[in-house]
Protein backbone atom coordinates (compact mmCIF):
# COMPACT_ATOMS: atom_id res chain seq x y z
CA UNK A 1 0.00 0.00 0.00
CA UNK A 2 1.39 3.45 -0.93
CA UNK A 3 2.11 5.64 2.06
CA UNK A 4 0.25 8.96 2.04
CA UNK A 5 2.85 10.45 4.39
CA UNK A 6 4.90 12.54 4.65
CA UNK A 7 2.61 15.51 4.39
CA UNK A 8 3.89 18.91 3.38
CA UNK A 9 1.90 22.06 4.06
CA UNK A 10 3.07 25.25 2.42
CA UNK A 11 1.72 28.76 3.02
CA UNK A 12 -1.73 27.27 3.64
CA UNK A 13 -4.44 29.66 4.70
CA UNK A 14 -8.15 29.39 5.43
CA UNK A 15 -10.20 32.57 5.26
CA UNK A 16 -13.88 33.01 5.93
CA UNK A 17 -15.81 36.18 5.11
CA UNK A 18 -12.57 38.07 4.63
CA UNK A 19 -11.16 36.99 8.00
CA UNK A 20 -8.13 34.74 8.30
CA UNK A 21 -8.99 31.78 10.53
CA UNK A 22 -5.76 29.88 10.07
CA UNK A 23 -2.49 30.60 8.32
CA UNK A 24 -0.35 31.10 6.53
CA UNK A 25 0.99 27.79 7.80
CA UNK A 26 4.06 25.80 6.84
CA UNK A 27 4.56 22.39 8.40
CA UNK A 28 5.65 18.86 7.62
CA UNK A 29 4.27 15.65 9.11
CA UNK A 30 6.52 12.64 8.98
CA UNK A 31 5.37 9.05 8.95
CA UNK A 32 5.43 8.13 12.63
CA UNK A 33 4.12 9.29 15.97
CA UNK A 34 1.34 11.28 17.55
CA UNK A 35 1.14 15.00 16.95
CA UNK A 36 -0.90 16.95 19.45
CA UNK A 37 -2.19 20.38 18.48
CA UNK A 38 -2.70 22.67 21.45
CA UNK A 39 -3.53 26.32 21.84
CA UNK A 40 -6.12 28.65 23.34
CA UNK A 41 -9.74 28.81 22.19
CA UNK A 42 -10.08 30.38 18.76
CA UNK A 43 -6.46 29.63 17.86
CA UNK A 44 -7.71 27.64 14.85
CA UNK A 45 -7.01 24.08 16.03
CA UNK A 46 -10.18 22.59 14.59
CA UNK A 47 -9.82 24.54 11.36
CA UNK A 48 -6.22 23.34 11.02
CA UNK A 49 -7.36 19.71 11.28
CA UNK A 50 -10.23 20.35 8.87
CA UNK A 51 -7.77 21.98 6.48
CA UNK A 52 -5.36 19.03 6.59
CA UNK A 53 -8.21 16.54 6.14
CA UNK A 54 -9.80 18.49 3.29
CA UNK A 55 -12.95 19.58 5.14
CA UNK A 56 -11.98 23.27 5.02
CA UNK A 57 -11.26 24.84 1.66
CA UNK A 58 -7.87 26.45 1.26
CA UNK A 59 -7.87 30.14 0.45
CA UNK A 60 -4.26 29.88 -0.59
CA UNK A 61 -1.23 27.60 -0.26
CA UNK A 62 -0.98 23.85 -0.60
CA UNK A 63 -1.54 20.71 1.44
CA UNK A 64 0.45 18.04 -0.37
CA UNK A 65 0.26 14.37 0.58
CA UNK A 66 2.71 11.82 -0.72
CA UNK A 67 -0.02 10.46 -3.02
CA UNK A 68 -2.70 12.22 -5.08
CA UNK A 69 -5.26 13.95 -2.85
CA UNK A 70 -8.16 11.68 -3.82
CA UNK A 71 -6.19 8.58 -2.90
CA UNK A 72 -4.87 10.22 0.27
CA UNK A 73 -8.38 11.13 1.41
CA UNK A 74 -9.47 7.51 1.41
CA UNK A 75 -6.60 6.62 3.74
CA UNK A 76 -7.46 9.14 6.45
CA UNK A 77 -10.18 9.23 9.06
CA UNK A 78 -11.57 11.95 11.28
CA UNK A 79 -13.13 11.79 14.73
CA UNK A 80 -15.14 14.88 15.60
CA UNK A 81 -15.41 16.58 18.97
CA UNK A 82 -19.14 15.95 19.11
CA UNK A 83 -19.40 12.36 17.88
CA UNK A 84 -21.72 12.01 14.91
CA UNK A 85 -23.78 8.84 15.14
CA UNK A 86 -25.97 7.57 12.37
CA UNK A 87 -29.53 6.58 13.26
CA UNK A 88 -28.70 2.90 13.09
CA UNK A 89 -27.43 0.18 15.36
CA UNK A 90 -23.93 0.34 16.80
CA UNK A 91 -22.84 -2.46 14.47
CA UNK A 92 -24.23 -0.74 11.36
CA UNK A 93 -22.61 2.54 12.39
CA UNK A 94 -19.19 0.91 12.61
CA UNK A 95 -19.71 -1.06 9.40
CA UNK A 96 -20.89 2.00 7.48
CA UNK A 97 -17.53 3.16 5.99
CA UNK A 98 -16.86 -0.34 4.65
CA UNK A 99 -20.30 -0.59 3.06
CA UNK A 100 -19.76 2.83 1.47
CA UNK A 101 -16.65 1.46 -0.15
CA UNK A 102 -18.20 -1.65 -1.56
CA UNK A 103 -17.50 -4.28 1.11
CA UNK A 104 -20.27 -6.88 1.35
CA UNK A 105 -22.68 -6.18 4.17
CA UNK A 106 -22.06 -9.53 5.88
CA UNK A 107 -18.28 -9.04 5.80
CA UNK A 108 -18.60 -5.39 6.92
CA UNK A 109 -20.76 -6.45 9.86
CA UNK A 110 -18.33 -9.19 10.85
CA UNK A 111 -15.45 -6.72 10.90
CA UNK A 112 -17.62 -4.19 12.73
CA UNK A 113 -18.18 -6.78 15.45
CA UNK A 114 -14.41 -7.23 15.78
CA UNK A 115 -13.87 -3.50 16.08
CA UNK A 116 -16.73 -3.10 18.53
CA UNK A 117 -15.03 -5.69 20.73
CA UNK A 118 -11.70 -3.86 20.46
CA UNK A 119 -13.21 -0.60 21.72
CA UNK A 120 -15.37 -2.25 24.36
CA UNK A 121 -18.73 -2.03 22.64
CA UNK A 122 -19.28 -5.74 22.08
CA UNK A 123 -22.31 -5.75 24.39
CA UNK A 124 -23.94 -2.84 22.60
CA UNK A 125 -23.80 -4.12 19.02
CA UNK A 126 -27.52 -4.20 18.37
CA UNK A 127 -28.45 -1.13 20.37
CA UNK A 128 -29.44 2.07 18.57
CA UNK A 129 -26.32 4.23 18.51
CA UNK A 130 -28.29 7.30 19.52
CA UNK A 131 -28.95 5.95 23.01
CA UNK A 132 -25.27 5.41 23.87
CA UNK A 133 -23.53 7.56 26.49
CA UNK A 134 -21.09 10.29 25.40
CA UNK A 135 -18.06 8.07 26.04
CA UNK A 136 -19.61 5.13 24.18
CA UNK A 137 -20.48 7.35 21.22
CA UNK A 138 -16.90 8.53 21.03
CA UNK A 139 -15.65 4.93 21.16
CA UNK A 140 -18.08 4.10 18.37
CA UNK A 141 -16.75 7.04 16.35
CA UNK A 142 -13.21 5.75 16.93
CA UNK A 143 -14.09 2.22 15.84
CA UNK A 144 -15.85 3.60 12.75
CA UNK A 145 -12.79 5.71 11.94
CA UNK A 146 -10.38 2.82 12.46
CA UNK A 147 -12.30 0.08 10.66
CA UNK A 148 -10.80 1.06 7.30
CA UNK A 149 -7.34 1.03 8.89
CA UNK A 150 -6.43 4.61 7.99
CA UNK A 151 -2.82 5.67 7.74
CA UNK A 152 -3.63 9.00 9.38
CA UNK A 153 -6.23 9.53 12.09
CA UNK A 154 -7.36 13.07 12.92
CA UNK A 155 -9.11 13.62 16.23
CA UNK A 156 -10.67 16.90 17.30
CA UNK A 157 -10.74 17.01 21.11
CA UNK A 158 -12.09 13.46 21.32
CA UNK A 159 -12.30 13.46 25.11
CA UNK A 160 -13.81 16.90 25.63
CA UNK A 161 -16.86 16.54 27.91
CA UNK A 162 -15.93 12.98 28.90
CA UNK A 163 -15.28 11.80 32.43
CA UNK A 164 -11.91 10.45 33.62
CA UNK A 165 -12.74 6.81 33.02
CA UNK A 166 -13.95 7.34 29.46
CA UNK A 167 -10.94 9.58 28.77
CA UNK A 168 -8.59 6.84 29.96
CA UNK A 169 -10.34 4.25 27.79
CA UNK A 170 -10.09 6.48 24.72
CA UNK A 171 -6.41 7.19 25.43
CA UNK A 172 -5.71 3.46 25.74
CA UNK A 173 -7.26 2.90 22.31
CA UNK A 174 -5.20 5.77 20.89
CA UNK A 175 -1.97 4.40 22.40
CA UNK A 176 -2.69 1.02 20.83
CA UNK A 177 -3.61 2.61 17.49
CA UNK A 178 -0.39 4.61 17.41
CA UNK A 179 1.61 1.52 18.35
CA UNK A 180 0.06 -0.30 15.40
CA UNK A 181 1.46 2.35 13.07
CA UNK A 182 -1.41 4.78 12.54
CA UNK A 183 -0.24 8.38 12.44
CA UNK A 184 -2.32 10.42 14.87
CA UNK A 185 -2.97 14.14 14.70
CA UNK A 186 -5.16 15.36 17.53
CA UNK A 187 -6.25 18.56 19.20
CA UNK A 188 -6.76 18.86 22.93
CA UNK A 189 -7.17 21.44 25.66
CA UNK A 190 -5.87 19.01 28.23
CA UNK A 191 -2.15 19.57 28.87
CA UNK A 192 -1.90 16.34 30.86
CA UNK A 193 -3.38 14.42 27.95
CA UNK A 194 -0.99 16.11 25.54
CA UNK A 195 1.94 15.01 27.74
CA UNK A 196 0.62 11.44 27.92
CA UNK A 197 0.03 11.03 24.19
CA UNK A 198 2.26 13.36 22.23
CA UNK A 199 5.49 12.56 20.49
CA UNK A 200 5.30 15.95 18.77
CA UNK A 201 3.48 19.16 19.69
CA UNK A 202 2.13 21.95 17.55
CA UNK A 203 1.35 25.09 19.56
CA UNK A 204 -1.14 27.11 17.58
CA UNK A 205 -1.68 30.75 18.44
CA UNK A 206 -3.85 33.24 16.56
CA UNK A 207 -4.06 30.91 13.58
CA UNK A 208 -0.32 30.47 13.19
CA UNK A 209 2.05 27.69 14.18
CA UNK A 210 3.92 29.29 17.05
CA UNK A 211 5.94 26.19 17.88
CA UNK A 212 6.27 22.71 16.40
CA UNK A 213 8.72 20.50 18.14
CA UNK A 214 9.29 17.17 19.91
CA UNK A 215 6.96 16.80 22.87
CA UNK A 216 9.66 16.37 25.49
CA UNK A 217 11.48 19.51 24.37
CA UNK A 218 8.24 21.48 24.24
CA UNK A 219 7.09 20.62 27.73
CA UNK A 220 10.60 21.02 29.17
CA UNK A 221 11.36 24.37 27.65
CA UNK A 222 8.86 26.08 25.34
CA UNK A 223 10.51 28.70 23.17
CA UNK A 224 7.77 31.32 23.20
CA UNK A 225 6.27 33.14 26.20
CA UNK A 226 2.75 32.34 24.98
CA UNK A 227 3.46 28.60 24.93
CA UNK A 228 5.13 28.79 28.34
CA UNK A 229 2.13 30.63 29.77
CA UNK A 230 -0.28 28.12 28.18
CA UNK A 231 1.58 25.15 29.69
CA UNK A 232 1.57 26.84 33.10
CA UNK A 233 -2.18 27.24 32.85
CA UNK A 234 -2.12 31.01 32.61
CA UNK A 235 -4.74 32.75 30.52
CA UNK A 236 -3.51 33.17 26.97
CA UNK A 237 -5.74 35.19 24.67
Amino acid at each position, binding site marked *: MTAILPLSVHAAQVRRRGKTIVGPIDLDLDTQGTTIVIGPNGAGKTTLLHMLHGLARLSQGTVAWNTPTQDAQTKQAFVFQAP*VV*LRRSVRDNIA*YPLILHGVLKSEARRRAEDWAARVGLAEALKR*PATVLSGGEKQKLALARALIREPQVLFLDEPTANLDGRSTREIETILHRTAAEGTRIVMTTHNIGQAQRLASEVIFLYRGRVHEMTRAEAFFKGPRTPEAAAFIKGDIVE
Partner: protein
Amino acid sequence: MGEIWQGLTAAFWLIVTLDSDLVEITLRSLYVTLTAVAIACALALPLGAWLAIQRFRYRRIVIALLNALMGLPPVVVGLIVYLFLSRQGPFGALNLIFTPTAMIIAQVIIVTPLIASIAHQAIRELWADYHDLLISLNATKRQRMATLIWDARRALLTAALAGFGRAIGEVGAVMIVGGNIDHVSRILTTAIALETSKGNFALALGLGFVLIGLAIAVNLMIHGLGRTEREGTW
Protein backbone atom coordinates in the same frame (compact mmCIF):
# COMPACT_ATOMS: atom_id res chain seq x y z
CA MET B 1 -78.53 14.21 14.29
CA GLY B 2 -80.89 11.67 12.75
CA GLU B 3 -78.97 11.74 9.49
CA ILE B 4 -75.69 11.11 11.26
CA TRP B 5 -77.23 8.11 12.98
CA GLN B 6 -78.67 6.90 9.68
CA GLY B 7 -75.25 7.40 8.13
CA LEU B 8 -73.60 5.34 10.83
CA THR B 9 -76.22 2.62 10.39
CA ALA B 10 -75.79 2.71 6.61
CA ALA B 11 -72.02 2.51 6.98
CA PHE B 12 -72.37 -0.40 9.38
CA TRP B 13 -74.60 -2.39 7.01
CA LEU B 14 -72.52 -1.54 3.96
CA ILE B 15 -69.46 -2.94 5.69
CA VAL B 16 -71.12 -5.91 7.38
CA THR B 17 -72.77 -7.06 4.16
CA LEU B 18 -69.60 -6.35 2.19
CA ASP B 19 -71.66 -4.37 -0.30
CA SER B 20 -70.11 -5.11 -3.69
CA ASP B 21 -70.28 -1.50 -4.89
CA LEU B 22 -68.65 -0.29 -1.67
CA VAL B 23 -65.88 -2.86 -1.92
CA GLU B 24 -65.25 -1.96 -5.54
CA ILE B 25 -65.17 1.79 -4.83
CA THR B 26 -63.01 1.34 -1.75
CA LEU B 27 -60.49 -0.84 -3.55
CA ARG B 28 -60.35 1.65 -6.42
CA SER B 29 -59.83 4.51 -3.95
CA LEU B 30 -56.98 2.60 -2.33
CA TYR B 31 -55.48 1.65 -5.67
CA VAL B 32 -55.53 5.22 -6.99
CA THR B 33 -54.28 6.81 -3.77
CA LEU B 34 -51.59 4.29 -2.85
CA THR B 35 -50.24 4.21 -6.41
CA ALA B 36 -50.17 8.01 -6.51
CA VAL B 37 -48.44 8.23 -3.12
CA ALA B 38 -45.90 5.55 -4.08
CA ILE B 39 -45.04 7.38 -7.32
CA ALA B 40 -44.96 10.72 -5.51
CA CYS B 41 -42.61 9.28 -2.86
CA ALA B 42 -40.31 7.89 -5.54
CA LEU B 43 -40.08 11.39 -7.00
CA ALA B 44 -40.29 13.53 -3.88
CA LEU B 45 -37.91 11.77 -1.48
CA PRO B 46 -34.84 11.96 -3.75
CA LEU B 47 -35.87 15.50 -4.70
CA GLY B 48 -36.09 16.52 -1.03
CA ALA B 49 -32.73 14.90 -0.28
CA TRP B 50 -31.12 16.47 -3.33
CA LEU B 51 -32.39 19.92 -2.39
CA ALA B 52 -31.03 19.44 1.12
CA ILE B 53 -27.48 18.59 0.07
CA GLN B 54 -27.04 20.39 -3.23
CA ARG B 55 -25.99 24.03 -3.39
CA PHE B 56 -26.91 25.85 -6.58
CA ARG B 57 -27.72 29.37 -7.61
CA TYR B 58 -31.53 29.42 -7.47
CA ARG B 59 -31.88 26.88 -4.65
CA ARG B 60 -33.83 29.18 -2.33
CA ILE B 61 -36.25 30.12 -5.10
CA VAL B 62 -36.79 26.45 -5.96
CA ILE B 63 -37.47 25.61 -2.29
CA ALA B 64 -39.86 28.57 -1.95
CA LEU B 65 -41.63 27.44 -5.12
CA LEU B 66 -41.86 23.88 -3.82
CA ASN B 67 -43.37 25.13 -0.56
CA ALA B 68 -45.83 27.27 -2.49
CA LEU B 69 -46.85 24.29 -4.62
CA MET B 70 -47.99 22.50 -1.46
CA GLY B 71 -51.05 24.69 -1.67
CA LEU B 72 -51.86 23.84 -5.29
CA PRO B 73 -55.65 24.05 -5.79
CA PRO B 74 -56.70 20.51 -6.79
CA VAL B 75 -59.41 21.79 -9.09
CA VAL B 76 -56.85 23.74 -11.11
CA VAL B 77 -54.58 20.68 -11.24
CA GLY B 78 -57.56 18.65 -12.42
CA LEU B 79 -58.35 21.21 -15.10
CA ILE B 80 -54.77 21.30 -16.39
CA VAL B 81 -54.45 17.51 -16.41
CA TYR B 82 -57.83 17.35 -18.16
CA LEU B 83 -56.63 19.75 -20.88
CA PHE B 84 -53.48 17.68 -21.41
CA LEU B 85 -55.28 14.31 -21.51
CA SER B 86 -58.51 15.26 -23.26
CA ARG B 87 -59.04 14.14 -26.84
CA GLN B 88 -57.86 17.51 -28.16
CA GLY B 89 -54.96 17.71 -25.74
CA PRO B 90 -51.30 16.85 -26.43
CA PHE B 91 -51.67 13.43 -24.77
CA GLY B 92 -55.20 12.74 -25.98
CA ALA B 93 -54.02 9.83 -28.13
CA LEU B 94 -53.14 7.91 -24.95
CA ASN B 95 -56.87 7.62 -24.10
CA LEU B 96 -56.23 8.23 -20.42
CA ILE B 97 -58.96 10.73 -19.68
CA PHE B 98 -61.72 9.39 -17.39
CA THR B 99 -59.57 6.49 -16.24
CA PRO B 100 -57.97 5.73 -12.86
CA THR B 101 -54.58 6.44 -14.48
CA ALA B 102 -55.63 10.03 -15.13
CA MET B 103 -56.71 10.29 -11.49
CA ILE B 104 -53.32 8.94 -10.37
CA ILE B 105 -51.52 11.51 -12.53
CA ALA B 106 -53.53 14.35 -10.99
CA GLN B 107 -52.92 13.07 -7.46
CA VAL B 108 -49.20 12.66 -8.08
CA ILE B 109 -49.04 16.32 -9.12
CA ILE B 110 -50.95 17.38 -6.00
CA VAL B 111 -49.04 15.37 -3.38
CA THR B 112 -45.47 15.40 -4.76
CA PRO B 113 -44.71 18.98 -3.61
CA LEU B 114 -46.19 18.23 -0.18
CA ILE B 115 -44.06 15.12 0.36
CA ALA B 116 -40.94 16.74 -1.13
CA SER B 117 -41.28 19.79 1.04
CA ILE B 118 -41.69 17.85 4.30
CA ALA B 119 -38.90 15.48 3.22
CA HIS B 120 -36.60 18.39 2.44
CA GLN B 121 -37.19 19.89 5.87
CA ALA B 122 -36.46 16.62 7.68
CA ILE B 123 -33.43 15.73 5.58
CA ARG B 124 -31.96 19.23 5.80
CA GLU B 125 -31.83 18.96 9.59
CA LEU B 126 -30.20 15.54 9.38
CA TRP B 127 -27.72 16.78 6.77
CA ALA B 128 -26.58 19.49 9.19
CA ASP B 129 -25.64 16.67 11.61
CA TYR B 130 -24.13 14.31 9.04
CA HIS B 131 -22.41 16.81 6.74
CA ASP B 132 -18.84 16.62 8.03
CA LEU B 133 -18.95 12.86 8.62
CA LEU B 134 -20.20 12.00 5.14
CA ILE B 135 -17.73 14.36 3.47
CA SER B 136 -14.95 12.91 5.62
CA LEU B 137 -15.91 9.37 4.58
CA ASN B 138 -15.84 10.39 0.91
CA ALA B 139 -19.45 9.37 0.39
CA THR B 140 -20.63 10.08 -3.14
CA LYS B 141 -23.65 12.31 -3.66
CA ARG B 142 -25.83 9.28 -4.32
CA GLN B 143 -24.56 7.59 -1.14
CA ARG B 144 -25.21 10.73 0.88
CA MET B 145 -28.78 10.91 -0.40
CA ALA B 146 -29.37 7.21 0.26
CA THR B 147 -27.96 7.52 3.79
CA LEU B 148 -30.05 10.57 4.58
CA ILE B 149 -33.24 9.03 3.20
CA TRP B 150 -32.69 5.81 5.15
CA ASP B 151 -31.80 7.53 8.41
CA ALA B 152 -34.68 10.00 8.11
CA ARG B 153 -37.08 7.18 7.28
CA ARG B 154 -39.43 7.81 10.16
CA ALA B 155 -39.82 11.49 9.38
CA LEU B 156 -40.27 10.55 5.73
CA LEU B 157 -42.98 8.10 6.70
CA THR B 158 -44.82 11.05 8.19
CA ALA B 159 -44.33 12.90 4.90
CA ALA B 160 -45.76 9.96 2.99
CA LEU B 161 -48.72 9.78 5.38
CA ALA B 162 -49.38 13.48 4.91
CA GLY B 163 -49.40 12.82 1.17
CA PHE B 164 -51.75 9.88 1.67
CA GLY B 165 -54.05 12.01 3.80
CA ARG B 166 -54.24 14.67 1.14
CA ALA B 167 -54.73 12.21 -1.72
CA ILE B 168 -57.37 9.95 -0.11
CA GLY B 169 -59.61 12.91 0.66
CA GLU B 170 -59.11 14.68 -2.65
CA VAL B 171 -62.21 15.17 -4.79
CA GLY B 172 -61.88 18.17 -7.12
CA ALA B 173 -59.12 16.97 -9.43
CA VAL B 174 -60.18 13.32 -9.57
CA MET B 175 -63.76 14.31 -10.33
CA ILE B 176 -62.62 16.36 -13.35
CA VAL B 177 -60.11 13.89 -14.81
CA GLY B 178 -61.89 10.70 -13.70
CA GLY B 179 -65.42 11.74 -14.50
CA ASN B 180 -66.91 9.70 -11.62
CA ILE B 181 -67.98 6.94 -14.00
CA ASP B 182 -69.66 3.99 -12.28
CA HIS B 183 -67.48 0.85 -12.27
CA VAL B 184 -64.67 2.77 -14.00
CA SER B 185 -63.48 5.79 -12.10
CA ARG B 186 -65.80 6.18 -9.12
CA ILE B 187 -63.96 6.41 -5.82
CA LEU B 188 -65.12 7.15 -2.29
CA THR B 189 -64.83 10.94 -2.47
CA THR B 190 -66.53 11.28 -5.83
CA ALA B 191 -69.23 8.85 -4.74
CA ILE B 192 -69.86 10.95 -1.62
CA ALA B 193 -70.12 14.09 -3.76
CA LEU B 194 -72.58 12.33 -6.07
CA GLU B 195 -74.77 10.94 -3.28
CA THR B 196 -74.83 14.35 -1.57
CA SER B 197 -75.93 16.05 -4.78
CA LYS B 198 -78.72 13.47 -5.09
CA GLY B 199 -79.82 14.25 -1.54
CA ASN B 200 -78.90 10.74 -0.39
CA PHE B 201 -77.26 11.98 2.78
CA ALA B 202 -77.36 8.73 4.71
CA LEU B 203 -75.43 6.85 2.06
CA ALA B 204 -73.06 9.81 1.59
CA LEU B 205 -72.39 9.83 5.32
CA GLY B 206 -71.96 6.08 5.32
CA LEU B 207 -69.34 6.35 2.60
CA GLY B 208 -67.78 9.22 4.54
CA PHE B 209 -67.39 7.07 7.63
CA VAL B 210 -65.86 4.32 5.53
CA LEU B 211 -63.41 6.86 4.10
CA ILE B 212 -62.43 8.09 7.55
CA GLY B 213 -62.04 4.52 8.80
CA LEU B 214 -59.91 3.67 5.78
CA ALA B 215 -57.62 6.66 6.31
CA ILE B 216 -57.15 5.80 9.98
CA ALA B 217 -56.58 2.11 9.22
CA VAL B 218 -53.93 2.81 6.58
CA ASN B 219 -52.17 5.26 8.90
CA LEU B 220 -52.13 2.76 11.76
CA MET B 221 -50.96 -0.01 9.45
CA ILE B 222 -48.06 2.06 8.08
CA HIS B 223 -47.09 3.19 11.57
CA GLY B 224 -47.12 -0.44 12.66
CA LEU B 225 -45.05 -1.59 9.70
CA GLY B 226 -42.63 1.29 10.18
CA ARG B 227 -42.25 0.49 13.88
CA THR B 228 -42.73 4.18 14.62
CA GLU B 229 -42.70 5.02 18.33
CA ARG B 230 -41.12 1.68 19.25
CA GLU B 231 -37.65 3.05 18.64
CA GLY B 232 -38.59 6.64 19.26
CA THR B 233 -35.03 7.86 19.62
CA TRP B 234 -34.24 6.98 16.00
